[in-house]
């Protein structure tokens, strides 16, 4: 199975690569033809979106969603997939699904560390912003932890950094992507 990681400059995509390779995936640079496209998440919203525009990945991702091809957004990758982000003074998102990204208001911010995702296990989070969307499918301490809309799955936590539990989560997303691409 071929997976494309949409790079956009700043950020650690290495750990996503390592995690996917451990699961037996082949990495490709071709966002359009991959079985799954991963929008990784480190950096700030504005620079990530600018990077995606520059590479043309933004259009490729929109086309994937329209065609029902799987896309996984991780952390910032989930946040910038929404219609709007309050980060960096406000910036328009990719609009792959409805909703917006807002700054966290309670607790220590950035919210960094392992936290329970209701009923799913414990995963690693590192974020100052979170999604506000009708597409939420899981929460962690009141924060949106997972979203789903059409062929888009997004997680606020970092499965690639969440040990064996994270690996199982990624494997399930890959499994789902396989059945979609066969369908």
């Amino acid at each position, binding site marked *: 199975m071929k997976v494309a990681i949409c790079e956009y400059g700043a950020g650690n995509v*290495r*750990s996503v690569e390592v995690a996917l390779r451990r699961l037996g995936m082949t990495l490709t640079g071709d966002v359009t033809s991959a079985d799954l496209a991963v929008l990784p998440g480190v950096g700030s919203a504005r620079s990530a979106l600018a990077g995606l525009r520059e590479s043309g990945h933004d259009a490729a991702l929109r086309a994937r969603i329209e065609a029902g091809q799987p896309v996984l957004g991780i952390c910032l990758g989930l946040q910038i997939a929404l219609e709007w982000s309050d980060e960096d003074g406000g910036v328009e998102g990719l609009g792959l699904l409805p909703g917006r990204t807002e700054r966290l208001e309670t607790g220590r911010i*950035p919210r960094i560390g392992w936290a329970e995702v209701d009923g799913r296990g414990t995963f690693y989070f*590192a974020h100052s912003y979170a999604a506000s969307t009708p597409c939420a499918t899981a929460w962690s301490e009141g924060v949106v932890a997972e979203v789903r809309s059409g062929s888009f799955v997004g997680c606020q936590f970092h499965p*690639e950094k969440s040990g064996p539990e994270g690996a199982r989560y990624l494997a399930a997303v890959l499994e789902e992507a396989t059945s979609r691409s066969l369908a």
Partner: protein
Amino acid sequence: MVKGVRFKELRDVGDPVELAAAYSDAGADELVFLDITATLEGRATLVELVGRIAERLAIPFTVGGGVRSVADAEELLDAGADKVAVNSAALERPALLAELAGRMGSQAVVVAIDAQAGRVRTRAGTAETQRTAVDWAREAVECGAGEVLLTSMDADGTRAGYDLELTGAVAAAVPVPVIASGGAGGAQHVAEALEVAQAALLASILHEDPARLASLRDELRAMGIEVRDVA
């Protein structure tokens, strides 16, 4: 890999890649790798080594030592670090923290503070500064640091417990997570540290016996502290 007592008497404790993999397998929640003499020896951190460690991990990975610019930090992120810790260079030029946060987001920027008797020391603890740890932590966070790694040089390597007073004072002064470091001797110390800080760093007691981490986690769980399942 080396470990000392109060930043001195450094002794070799083994191969960093092997140790990192052992810690990850034994249930470490995060790995912090510091090239402690990078600044003193004018060296950028060992990027290639960071890459080899990252290959073996499935947990968050913080790297520090000799980071002086956004370019240094990006090189580490590209090699597989999730967060970059800065110490001496940020003391010399606090604006570095803002530059790093602007590029990587503050969740990826850790300010590492080495303190002795409440005052900040720099250059791997070899030089004193006029700042208190509390004031510097506050300023560093205002500049963009998203986490504070606070090492008490008085407690470092002693295994007599974390410096709870200092850690509590710093945690009360900043709105970001604080990692307590220096002095862990057992589960009770970790439990005490987690009362005042958001995370506790372990070094000396694990370097000799990485498997100790698993029993430590069990002891903490028995004390009623939430510990994630690692199976």
